[in-house]
């Protein structure tokens, strides 16, 4: 019904496909080829979205190099245009895209590293919420027989990632902490990403604690999460994990069955 619709369909189709002709009716004052002028728009779309991705995934970009990243971003953009104009939400699908991107197949750690970077952006912009303090939780923790049935809700800015790769060391080496050549890529490192004031921290976790916190974040009771952690390996200092969460304000709620 709208006369704008066919023009916008035609221009949209031509934006990401330079080989596609422009819709009829696109003109220039001097009779020059409008497609050459339309390249300004084509370039704006790809460059601005590539820039947005590069800002959210700086270490991923540093690891593969600027040219590889730009080429990969171009493929990603063609398949995954943003669904909203809020660019801080753009890039959720990039880690899975990297995992399936044939030229990145040799870099098995890259999708998880990208997930870590994405988690940092999400943590930075996550909702503000009060966190429970050690004092708030004192009576819960003093009641060991009821602990195993307790469920807790992580703070919205608290994200746990389990990885079989050394993503925390790799990321830290790009922040000037440690040398990249010293990173043992085969070491499994999980991560706790959280907000501390205006900063976003990336804390290393053992695989076991990573599984423990993932289970808690998914709503499992403490006892069940502890079993999951124990099945993952021997390093299961759960008290330390809970203390860590409390210290960084990572617990938003604590429910024990029977509580009012």
């Amino acid at each position: 019904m709208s006369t704008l619709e066919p023009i916008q369909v035609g221009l949209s189709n031509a934006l990401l496909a330079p080989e596609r002709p422009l819709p009829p009716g696109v003109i220039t004052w001097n009779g020059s080829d409008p497609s050459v002028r339309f390249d300004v728009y084509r370039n704006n779309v790809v460059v601005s979205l590539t820039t947005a991705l590069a800002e959210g995934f700086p270490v991923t970009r540093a690891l593969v190099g600027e040219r590889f990243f730009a080429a990969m971003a171009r493929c990603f953009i063609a398949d995954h245009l943003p669904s909203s104009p809020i660019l801080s939400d753009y890039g959720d699908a990039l880690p899975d895209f990297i995992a399936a991107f044939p030229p990145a197949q040799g870099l098995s750690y890259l999708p998880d590293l990208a997930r870590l970077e994405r988690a940092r952006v999400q943590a930075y912009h996550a909702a503000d919420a009060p966190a429970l303090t050690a004092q708030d939780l004192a009576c819960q923790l003093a009641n060991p027989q009821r602990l195993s049935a307790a469920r807790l809700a992580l703070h919205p800015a608290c994200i746990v990632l389990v990885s079989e790769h050394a993503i925390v060391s790799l990321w830290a080496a790009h922040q000037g902490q440690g040398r990249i050549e010293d990173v043992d890529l085969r070491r499994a490192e999980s991560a706790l990403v959280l907000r501390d004031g205006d900063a976003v921290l990336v804390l290393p976790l053992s695989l076991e604690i990573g599984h423990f916190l993932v289970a808690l974040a998914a709503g499992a009771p403490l006892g069940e999460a502890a079993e999951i952690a124990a099945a993952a390996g021997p390093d299961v200092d759960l008290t330390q994990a809970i203390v860590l969460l409390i210290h960084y304000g990572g617990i938003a709620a604590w429910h024990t069955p029977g509580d009012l």
Partner: protein
Amino acid sequence: MTTKSPTTIAVGIGLKAEHMPDIIADDTALDFVEVHAENYMVSGGPALRQLTRVRDRFALSIHGVGLSIGGAAPLDQEHLDRLAALLQRFEPAWFSEHLAWSSHGGACYNDLLPLPYNPATLVHVCDQIDVVQERLGRRLLLENPSTYIEFATSSMDEGAFLAEVATRTGCGLLLDVNNAYISAVNHGRDPWDLIVALPPAAVGEIHLAGFAEDRDAVGDRLLIDTHGAPIAEAVWDFYRRTLRHLGSRPTLIERDQAIPPLAVLVAEAQRARSAWVDAAAWTEAAS
């Protein structure tokens, strides 16, 4: 029957995240700052806290880049809701958006794409602006775009189109002097035609920025609105002429690429202040 020119002009800059700490800490000689609405459509965290602190010190302008007012489809209600919440939270002095489209079929292109100017588009754009102003409960300033192509179905000049939108909807206009200059060069027109077509009372804000220069397929100048360079001298001249015609208007320096230190942008804002002094003196002398 001349009215005495106001002695001051409000100047500001587009605020980038990298300048946040400096602008909060320093005693910056700016009257207002402008931020992109979409950069603050987040659930929580430091960005909103910082904007609150900025809002405490400067008048704020919120500039939307993603509403797609010229989109063929109805406006994205979810986005409009987010916008309403943001404006309610920060109560900016001005809210502006673009005469352009940026989304289609559920995909966002993150660029401001051009519209044919004709009576059918006019009705559609006015309907959309009515929806926006109704939902937000406030006046929108609509910005003239920089464009690189035109349409055979256009039957109105950009200036006449904008003037008619302002008259029909009651919206204000954000006159981007750089965009006016770019589009005029790109389409072989006189940029002054746009300025004189606009109802002066509707113009609520002016934008200034830098462009890059290329050539089209026959070798004619093609100016590209990069926001990545200092403002061109030709645009400063055009701005002074515009001020003599319109009078004092809040003026904003935009820089979104190759972002220099804050002091460089503040110096450009001060130059806008000086331009007003020159223009006011000229107007006094001529009256």
